[in-house]
């Protein structure tokens, strides 16, 4: 049964140094407020898992929270590079970052395998790709029925997954609508799950394209209005495209980045 907690308490209790942490939300509902709380609590040596690291992991990497990154596309969508990610990979700043790199299809299969309690996911993929040479979690398996060679990727099993959703009800069930991404798989593959929500309602309205996740697979629910900004929450607020563009300049320079984090994350009040 999901417990209603403040975001500060949820992160304090359920995210530990050295954990494998997945914060998901495929371009939509990115859990920025929770990521900022992890930065404020100075968590260290995390293995960060996310298909599209986006600005949130650029910030976690640039503040030295991460030892390792498992991902499948590491850019600033529609803008260009993630400069803190690049600085960590190219120059080891602020600390070296180990990377485990997938394609989207493979990473999705690895989450689905984790959610299904299987040791690996399978796909017809990675044909001719050099990624296979650099990622030891990709192997080949032979179909026992047809003999076809298929790619196998070891299952993702995060210690804790964190997602943002539009609503929780009083029982702690969670509703996600619009682009539903990989949040359900992130929650079901993890040992613990934290969900931040825009609001807590008496009754869900069930708009089209919605997913409901029952409370008993969720460890903690936190009410954090605006918790996905500057990404968006369908039905609540738009993506702040101007900030995604601005981030390019902020993140290019180590000092400017550090000053931005100090001002906007470290000195920001903790979210309820």
């Amino acid at each position, binding site marked *: 049964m999901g417990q209603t907690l403040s975001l500060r308490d949820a992160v304090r209790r359920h995210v530990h140094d050295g954990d494998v942490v997945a914060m998901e939300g*495929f*371009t*939509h509902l990115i859990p920025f407020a929770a990521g900022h709380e992890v930065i404020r609590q100075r968590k260290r040596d995390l293995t960060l898992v996310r*298909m*599209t690291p986006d600005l949130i992991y650029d910030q976690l990497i640039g503040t030295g929270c991460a030892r390792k990154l498992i*991902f*499948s*596309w*590491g*850019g600033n*969508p*529609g803008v260009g*590079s*993630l400069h803190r*990610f*690049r600085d960590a*990979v*190219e120059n080891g700043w602020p600390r070296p970052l180990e990377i485990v*790199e*997938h*394609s*989207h*299809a*493979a990473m*999705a*299969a690895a*989450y*689905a395998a984790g959610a299904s309690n299987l040791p690996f996911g399978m*796909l*017809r*993929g*990675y*044909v*001719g*790709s*050099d*990624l296979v040479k*650099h990622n030891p979690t990709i192997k080949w398996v032979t179909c026992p029925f047809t003999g*076809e*060679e298929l790619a196998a990727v070891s299952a993702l099993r995060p210690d804790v997954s964190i997602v943002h959703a539009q609503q929780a009800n009083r029982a702690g069930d969670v509703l996600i609508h*619009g*682009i*539903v*991404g*990989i949040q*359900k*798989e992130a929650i079901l593959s993890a040992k613990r799950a934290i969900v931040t929500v825009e609001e807590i309602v008496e009754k869900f309205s069930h708009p089209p*394209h919605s*997913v409901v996740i029952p409370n008993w697979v969720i460890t903690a629910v936190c009410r954090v209005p605006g918790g996905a*900004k*500057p990404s*968006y929450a*369908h039905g609540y*607020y*738009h*993506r*702040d*495209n*101007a*900030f995604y563009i601005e981030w390019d300049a902020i993140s290019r320079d180590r000092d400017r980045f550090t000053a931005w984090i100090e001002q906007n994350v470290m000195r920001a009040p903790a979210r309820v």
Partner: protein
Amino acid sequence: MSEYTNDELMAIEAARGLRDGDVCFVGIGLPSTAANLARLTHAPNIVLVYESGTIGTRPDVLPLSIGDGELAETADAVVSVPEIFAYWLQGGRIDVGFLGAAQIDRYGNLNTTVIGDYAKPKTRLPGAGGAPEIATSAKEVLLIVKQDRRTFVERLDFVTTAGYLTGGDSRAKSGAPGAGPTRVITNLGVMEPDPFTKELTLVQLHPGVEVEQVRAATGWDLKVAKELRRTPEPSPQTLAVLRDLLARTKAAHAAQAHSGCH
């Protein structure tokens, strides 16, 4: 003859190749512009699929990211990320996939991972995203790439995504069900694979472009077809539809920025 930009010409040429009813797996940028332009002109029944899980979407303006809300609002169906890749792409339901790249070689193999050595890269690029499996499973792939010697290289620093591998029948033997890249549209012209060697061959020149320019922008000894086609000038009607779409997009995103993030 009307004036137009390279980007407009590339989008229009890419749109021309799409058939009414094609199911297209689209990314952001020129592919999305081209596919929506086709939908608004000669191919009203084209089905647009974005990797964020939106199927049959009809956005009024172009999305800035593959996960824009309007894609979900105007879609026939929205599915999860594992489902879009497993059931819809790997399931063999995509006719045309669009890809771009930081580097491409003569067999249409693509690099979007690193420039330099993988362990100590000179430039770390975003990585694979959906590309390797789009290239594997889409029935055919269209590539849209700006042509210069930094991009059209003799040897890739890293093979992220397979085209025709080492040429000849190497792709056919690889187990990839899709045909591979059937057209490469650049700012200078169009290349298609040779039917036997699979080496990219210049088959079409854009208006005002000469063969020598294309050779000069290619990092290998480019094969040129005996009979070269000329890309038709964009029609004023098509240009008008494209510019209207781009203007609408700009206005919508500016208005959204104004309304802020409340």
